[in-house]
């Protein structure tokens, strides 16, 4: 099984530590991982802004870069959601159809296609889980609070394996943080207010760290946290899963 690792453009540029943690995690679990050098973006920023037509070639490049792999794994529910659900606007070649099926978020991959027993992560902190919407409601990583049924969460399932971690409960379990791609800029006032409220929920419930499956949500909240000098920080879930007493992250 050969995995192509997709690192979203903004993670590549601004959060290499999250990408390295994802790579190291997969390697630690014995997977063969390659990083296609010509990867850029999944096309979501343009498409969600109403310019799917300007994203088409970016989407085709994505397919070209990853066609040869058995799985495409990315540390982002949002990009994965875009590939799986919105790549229906480019020509549906057999390669595109395969990519739409085989592109997985790292959490889905770890829970459904990998053993995780050898992880041995430890992270002795109070952590608040931000359920990013595209993973949560788009890819059904967890039962959303609106839906009636048995609760489940593959993300929590992974975090529960981490030694010493204390997951806090939130007043609003899965409200959006207000990032939303270009929404964060186009609707700046609403976006920031949503972010402030989300962070406040984590602070009130004692979180030292906010984690999640999407660095984009965390980037937005981190921007507010740093500007307002709030007493907590953000970390991608892979940074926590890759964290152990013996092994500090590389960056």
């Amino acid at each position, binding site marked *: 099984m050969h995995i192509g690792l997709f690192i979203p453009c903004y993670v590549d540029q601004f959060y290499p530590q999250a990408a390295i943690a994802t790579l190291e995690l997969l390697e630690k679990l014995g997977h063969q991982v390659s990083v296609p050098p010509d990867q850029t973006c999944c096309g979501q920023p343009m498409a969600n802004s109403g310019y799917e037509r300007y994203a*088409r070639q970016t989407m085709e490049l994505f397919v070209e870069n990853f066609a040869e792999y058995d799985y495409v794994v990315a540390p982002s529910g949002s990009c994965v959601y875009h590939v799986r659900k919105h790549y229906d606007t480019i020509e549906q070649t057999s390669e595109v159809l395969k990519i739409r099926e085989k592109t997985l978020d790292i959490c889905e991959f770890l829970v459904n296609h990998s053993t995780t027993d050898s992880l041995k992560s430890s992270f002795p902190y109070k952590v608040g889980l931000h359920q990013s919407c595209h993973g949560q409601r788009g890819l059904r990583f967890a039962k959303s609070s609106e839906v009636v049924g048995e609760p489940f969460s593959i993300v929590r399932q992974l975090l529960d394996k981490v030694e010493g971690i204390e997951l806090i409960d939130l007043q609003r379990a899965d409200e959006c943080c207000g990032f939303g791609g270009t929404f964060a800029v186009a609707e700046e006032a609403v976006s920031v207010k949503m972010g402030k409220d989300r962070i406040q929920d984590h602070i009130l419930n004692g979180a030292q760290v906010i984690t999640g499956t999407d660095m984009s949500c965390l980037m937005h909240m981190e921007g507010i946290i740093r500007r307002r000098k709030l007493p907590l920080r953000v970390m991608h879930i892979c940074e926590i899963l890759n964290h152990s007493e013996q092994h500090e992250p590389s960056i």
Partner: protein
Amino acid sequence: MSHPSEAQKFIKNENRVNWHDESLWHVREKRDKAANLFPEWEQLREKASQIKAHSLSRLDHYLEEFEKNATANGIKVHWANDAIEHNEIVYNIFREHGVKRIVKSKSMLTEECHLNPFLEKHGVEVIDSDLGERIVQLAKETPSHIVLPAIHKKRMEIDELFQKHLHTQPSNGDAIYLTAAAREHLRQKFMKADAALTGVNFAIAETGEFVVCTNEGNADMGVHLAPLHIASMGIEKMIPRYEDLGVFIRLLARSATGQQVTTYTSQFRKPREGTELHIILVDNGRTVQLGREKYRRSLHCIRCGACMNTCPVYRRSGGHSYQSVVPGPIGSILSPGIDMKKHASLPFASSLCGSCSDVCPVKIDIHQQLYAWRQDITRETNEEPSKKFSMKLAGWLFTHPNLYRKAGKFGRKALKILPRWMVYNSLNAWGKQRELPEPPKQSFQEWYQQNRQKNG
């Protein structure tokens, strides 16, 4: 005027936003409680969605069946192509009966048709009899929510409004006193009304009857006293059979307010002796929307308002920021179908979190339709040329991996060395209230080249 600028005005008063957000979140929590008492909730949503899909697929047939059966029951059925025709039908009936004063229970359709100003222009006194609607009517405003029209108003504001219009004493926002005053005021209006207008929640083709749901009993009070009842109905409110009604009645109040059922669920089958009962079936753009396959499901809507209560954007921007008769997520997919240019900013007033689609009792794929409208709007209106340019540029850059890498490196370096005022200024909306990420020394790709490729 666009949604972002109106939202920004609303958000300036943070205490008010918090209060608005919490009031509506409370309603969402009540809805969750009610839904979770119901193990078959998800099946019920599915069933409701299927009934709506079926009804819409044979809407012509069911409308004609309804007309036939309603007429046989003694109801006078009228057809209106658009708002103008609707208003004229109403006024012509009023003229025949010499109607001077009317009471109207909640009807988003008559809001959509701008019936009140039309009738007032013709010298008819219109009193909105739903308490929330009466409040916004006295304040010369429009409803900010389809179920809770005055949710944006605080108690003290209502106190002042009533002092001015109903001559109440200052009561420090005493809800019991104010409600009693409204009750007395409205009772007098009910007694004097020459006609009663209502909306319609559901119309049943099989029996030729229609259903009106209220909590205040104001629709019933109006129609039981007046010799003339006119009901206005959007054609999408049609359901095939009497037994389908139970599915929707179980979903409506639970989704709207968390009640098991609305206090009054009144079924109208024939006119009371000595009175007239009219129903107006209104298209006003609905058949056009029906013809747009990707937006068809928006016509499933039963106007419960759950998508507004759950929407994190609506709760923080207020209903008026949408500047459309139906605000919130459902309004943002309905309104562009009526006037795309005017409502061009609405499908973008969403983070696409998808909460609306999950809460919707008739399973409208609201966030998918928002995404689809975005594509149509950028193609068919001249929405923000600068955004168009930057998206085109981004699309181009992302198909040139070498340039993307160089641009990334350059950008990170620039962020490091530029003075703060050059990065954080009025051109940078992100940085108004947020820091940009701290630029790292290396991108992941650069790190990978150095640490894996070379060794490997």
